[in-house]
């Protein structure tokens, strides 16, 4: 639905509608990172570390050396976060793509079923799904006599993969339905069957429409991995809390440490965000 003969509203209305549509696709607000956010974080980090150092006096260890001392441990936690985000994204994408294609199936039960699953997991809060998987999945499963252990972080990955799956399903469905029906009709007239049309005509066009929202979803997921700290997975937030208590619960270290962690997230997410914006511009469909 775009364009009208009656220009009653200024472009801001169309922009807002476009933004709303994009948010609906990924099921939440999309972070918009700019280079100056990173600069601000770095400034906060330097100033708070300086202030903490000045407060501590000479006899205590300097803030910088404390942070350097713990950096390897925290980095390990951060890599854990990234691993969770990769795995959840991979799993969610594979299952979600299938669900999305099933949502336009010609068989009513398949269509209705996949729609129901998609809506169910889209409407459930991430934290509740995380709790669900943390508490209900067993700590090990037995398949053909092999015992496969399921540590906490695997369960958290499952919990985060579920909402990703539902949102990917919505992205795929939205992309397929945004392709003009003329594409389907003309491929039919060229004797393509439904499967061929879908894989050879429609999907290649969908990829570029799906890529930006998919990357936005990844950015949201990466930020959501810290939720795993609420259920006690030893990822970077949990480790930071432990490091702070190991340092004797000094409140002046709170701001330096947390801004340090935020800066890592920023450095990781910023290039992705820039690239997504570029792709969005590049793939923008002219109407």
């Amino acid at each position, binding site marked *: 639905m775009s*364009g009208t003969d009656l220009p009653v*509203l200024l472009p801001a209305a169309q922009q*807002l509608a476009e933004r709303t549509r994009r948010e609906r696709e990924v099921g939440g607000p999309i972070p*918009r*990172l700019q280079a100056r956010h990173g600069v601000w974080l770095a400034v906060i980090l330097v100033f708070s570390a300086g202030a903490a150092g000045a407060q501590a006096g000479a006899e205590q260890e300097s803030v910088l050396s404390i942070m350097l001392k713990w950096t390897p441990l925290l980095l390990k936690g951060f890599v854990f976060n990234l691993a969770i985000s990769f795995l959840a994204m991979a799993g969610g994408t594979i299952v979600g793509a299938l669900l999305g294609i099933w949502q336009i199936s010609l068989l009513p039960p398949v269509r209705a079923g996949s729609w129901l699953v998609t809506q169910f997991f889209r*409407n459930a809060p991430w934290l509740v799904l995380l709790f669900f998987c943390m508490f209900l999945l067993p700590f090990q499963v037995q398949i053909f006599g092999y015992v496969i252990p399921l540590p906490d972080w695997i369960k958290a990955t499952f919990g985060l993969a579920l909402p990703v799956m539902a949102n990917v399903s919505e992205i795929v469905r939205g992309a397929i339905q945004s392709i003009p029906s003329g594409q389907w009709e003309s491929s039919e007239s060229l004797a393509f069957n439904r499967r061929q049309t879908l894989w050879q005509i429609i999907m290649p066009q969908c990829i570029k429409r799906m890529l930006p929202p998919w990357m936005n979803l990844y950015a949201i997921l990466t930020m959501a991995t810290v939720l795993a700290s609420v259920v006690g997975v030893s990822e970077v937030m949990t480790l930071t809390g432990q490091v702070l208590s190991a340092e004797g619960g000094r409140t002046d270290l*709170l701001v330096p440490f947390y801004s340090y962690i935020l800066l890592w997230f920023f450095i990781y997410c910023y290039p992705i965000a820039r690239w997504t914006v570029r792709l969005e511009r590049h793939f923008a469909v002219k109407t």
Partner: protein
Amino acid sequence: MEAFFVWFQWLYDETGINLTYFYDAFDRGRMIGGFFTTIWLSVVCLFFSTIIGIVGAWLQGSRLIWTRRIVQGYIQFFRNTPPLVQMYFFFFALGNLLPQVKNEFGFMEPMLGNFTWAAISLSFFAGAFNVEIFRSGIEAVPESTREAAEALGYNRLQSYMYVVLPLAFRVCLPALNNNLVNLVKTTTLAYAIAVPELLYVSNQIWSDSVNVPEMMVTLLILYVALVGLLVWAMHRWEQAIRVPGYGI
């Protein structure tokens, strides 16, 4: 009604499905309390975030550059940091700065409780999005429409009340709905600072009665029903008042 509750006791004895919040009056009270705390928290945050949105949008139109910059900084901060971090910041950092007061039992306690802090942090979180939404909504109404209203004898307030705001609201509604749904989902984060909302009381109940699977399923169904109902109702409303040619 009593027979209904007793049936669940029987269900537990027969099948082991332990739905304590049906047959145990104490758990029932907690569950209902938690459900209404979630709704109350959402309503309070909806109210205050709307006010923040309106005031912020008005301040963004200010002639003073620093006012605009401060509002912009506020939006950037709350849009780009995780809401969990914001909540911790409000509760642990700002909460500690406030003085302690004596409660009715003579104990010292923080001036603002955890519910208040959750409401404040979530209102600011949702408000940051509302500022931008209201701003675009008002920007979408062309000057000529305002002038036309003026030509028909409306004064400034009247043209705002009867022409600009209704149009702006219809433009804003889909975006506001996204924000509202997101807000209801985000209230679960209040769990982290021990606000007795749905997730938290469920946790208490399953800690007491060790009925984790039952409580988990209940929780999931309750949230999906709550959010699903909201999405459905809001979608109906959107469809009813959408401006032809614009929006989704």
